[in-house]
């Protein structure tokens, strides 16, 4: 069984890897590239813990084959902060205690960032529906929604 050779860009860096045809992008990120920030909560696209963007589009990396990333731009939670500068969403998640166990947090951050890039001023309703594919079992979502609202406000002001 020969492996697929893939050249892609992850968080802005050119990356090459070999993967099995049936291997998912999530497995590649976690097991081959050591990017364990993306989590597997279900493996069926129901929890959003593995959220990444593929050419700017929010997807579950458990439902993308590693081979499909050829020539694409992949962005993961590891690429959200710029060096030692946290993204406003990351800061607001901490400040608002929007995480308890933190395992869903990478997925929420990637998804929230994708939302704010598309809609800088989302309503609570829009945030809740955009994030419906990200499950959190600890917080009841209240503080997560508040953190996103607050980050959006800060980002609009600094624009």
């Amino acid at each position, binding site marked *: 069984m020969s492996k697929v050779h893939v050249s892609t860009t992850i968080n802005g860096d050119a990356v090459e890897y070999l993967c*099995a045809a*049936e291997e998912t992008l999530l497995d590649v990120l*976690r*097991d081959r590239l050591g*990017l*364990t*920030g*993306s*989590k*597997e*909560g*279900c*493996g*069926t696209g*129901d*929890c959003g*813990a593995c959220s990444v963007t593929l050419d700017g589009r929010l997807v579950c990396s458990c439902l993308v084959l590693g081979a499909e990333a050829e020539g694409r731009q992949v962005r*993961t*939670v*590891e690429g*959200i*902060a710029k060096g030692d500068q*946290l993204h406003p*969403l*990351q800061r607001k*998640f*901490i*400040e*608002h*205690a929007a*995480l*308890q*166990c*933190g*395992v*869903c*947090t*990478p997925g929420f*951050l990637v998804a929230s960032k994708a939302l704010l890039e598309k809609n800088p001023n989302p309503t*609570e*309703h829009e*945030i*809740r*529906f955009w*994030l*419906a*594919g*990200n*499950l*959190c*079992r*600890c*917080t*009841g*979502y*209240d*503080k*997560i*929604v*508040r953190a996103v609202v607050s980050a959006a406000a800060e980002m609009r002001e600094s624009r």
Partner: protein
Amino acid sequence: MPLDNPKGQSFRLVGSRPNRPDGIDKVTGRAKFGADMSAPGMLVGRLLRSPHAHARIRSIDIKKALALPGVKAIVTRDDFKEIEGDLRDVSRNVMARDKALYDGHAVAAVAAIDTATARKALKLIKVDYEILPHVTDVEEAMKPGAPVLHSDLFTQGVEPTPKKPSNIAKRHEFGHGDVAKGFAEADVVVERKFKSEATHQGYIEPHACLASVGNDGQGELWVCTQGHYAVRNVCASLLGMDVSKLRVTASEIGGGFGGKTTVFIEPVALALSRKAGKPVKIVMSREEVFRASGPTSSATVWVKIGAKKDGRITAGDAVLKYQGGAFPGSPVDMGAMSAFACYDLENVRAVGWDVVVNRPKQAAYRAPGAPISAFGVECVIDELAQKIGMDPVELRLKNAAREGTESSYGPTYGVIGLRATIEAAKAHPHYKAPLGPNQGRGVATGFWFNFGGQTCVSLNINIDGTVALAVGTPDIGGSRASMCLMAAEELGIGYEQVRTIVADTSSLGYNDISEGSRVTFSTGMATIQAARDAVKKLCGRAAQMWGISPDAVLWENGHAKPAGANAGDFPPLSLADIAKVAANTGGPIAGHCEVNAEGAGVSFSTHLCDVEIDPETGFTRVVRYTVIQDAGKAIHPSYVEGQYQGGAVQGIGWALNEEYIYGADGRLQNPGFLDYRIPVASDLPMIDTVIVEVPNPGHPYGLRGVGETSIVPPLAAVANAVSAAAKVRMMEIPMSPPKILKAMGEAPRR
């Protein structure tokens, strides 16, 4: 440890909301959870699970699988010695012996060079099953003639002990007074039977571990667990290892809620690693989590409550039947003890039946047992209020337990906050807000014991005056922030100067599991004591430097100072000043505490819930929700609120849409997040919280555990709201739309 100052205390840091110390790790992807660790030469472990609900295992043939290139080890029941005593059932749950007792029960495991090979190997293992009749429903399992799971299970707690085995493991009874007399005095009696389905804790991180056992028999285990010391002790027993030879490190944990208080894959990974001589990682799939970890009980609950016309309750009686899965030990005892714990009753009784069925062995789930019995009791209270024509909050206030009440489970309550939460509910704008069409409001109260337990911490003063605090209770919801706050409060230094870590089992003494809402209470108490121990030593060093008696030194705002003019006139020494010269004054300075923390204060919560029902489809939406709970003292209010909100939402899910669905074949039909429907962000409103603080006399800062009580009232709060909106009493949860629509259709038109 008693409350420092019963007259009220003021804090410098406790009660503030600083950023958590592990925050950055968790927002950048740097935090390492169970599945995030790897080791050189690591193998992939996978389990073969029974597809049958109940089957005798005649034989297991592993020859072909073992011959597959890339397969390094296979373990079955033959690799686990027979164990008697406490751990027998744990051992049999980890790996089936003579029988597979539920769909998903582990029967073999493979370690191979990669996932594909492991998967292929599992298919090559031939298990010869003799399929047996099964039972998954609690009432069915109690009937004479039901398929019996264990031929050596004889009901305990009944007189005389039966001669025939059955699925009824135990009868519990709690209460006092004379319920028959109480009902005779009642003007109004409400009697109802309720049913609740099994739910899962639904932590987002599946169970995962990485085991490595060397040829010298020394083992290392990296695992997501609520209690790594317990994992160590249990695994060592199951594998016949010395406890000292197994070092367990707790990874970051992606949710537990009680579900990660026991072992499933950990002993298997260790056994595979020992056999293969290489590290083995096992990560459960979500399907395995649902089929083969520890969901909670399904149950039937019968409740009868009688009251005078003025609302005074004269008697309460309940019979609870909880299935605990394939082995004895459902939390029905705690369900029975807590059923009426919110009320001041002269005549009360609760009987609980612990029943085994062909389902995975239940594990603790947030206030185990209590939400189910509270569901029945609080719904009957609601109906009683309607019958008497009394406001449901008033009825609760009239009968609420208070200091001096003989609790329904025995002990007399000390200072408790129940009335304060009910009064706060009554005064809350939510309770007075008008309702829209098709909306209904529900109220319910809840109780939980809260626990203490064995705790050990070590507080080390670093050379620059910062502090390293090592605790042994995994941080499941931000507890490190609370520990930093308490240590800094005691030492009089900044929050940022304390760093709390969760130490491995070889670096710190034994700690009980992070369960029972005990961490902030017990580890907090130990942290305070360790800090006080360190302060004593710091004062001693200062005394030495000043050449005065240690008794003449006091600690204030992070500085050693002479206690008074008689002690001498020395400029204060800061913690950093003393730390800097520690080598010259006697060596390292550290504070320690080893304690079995007692004195946990019970906690109460009152919830308000508004729902709106679509009368044509039964679709139900929670439109407003308020949690009011006694925290004793909130150390980090943000994380206290988080516990209130999270528990409430788990309860909302339980009430509306979450359930284990078994088919006629005894197999679980919905082992995934698609059809096991936990609440998503768009299902919910903001969850309002009110933190009530009635100090616990058994803790220096007055705190009470807050982790569990919040899941106790929601089942009934939502049921009462739905019943009000639908104008028909709902007695089964989850109240999924088909059930609501059916009930509305069958209800007499009003």
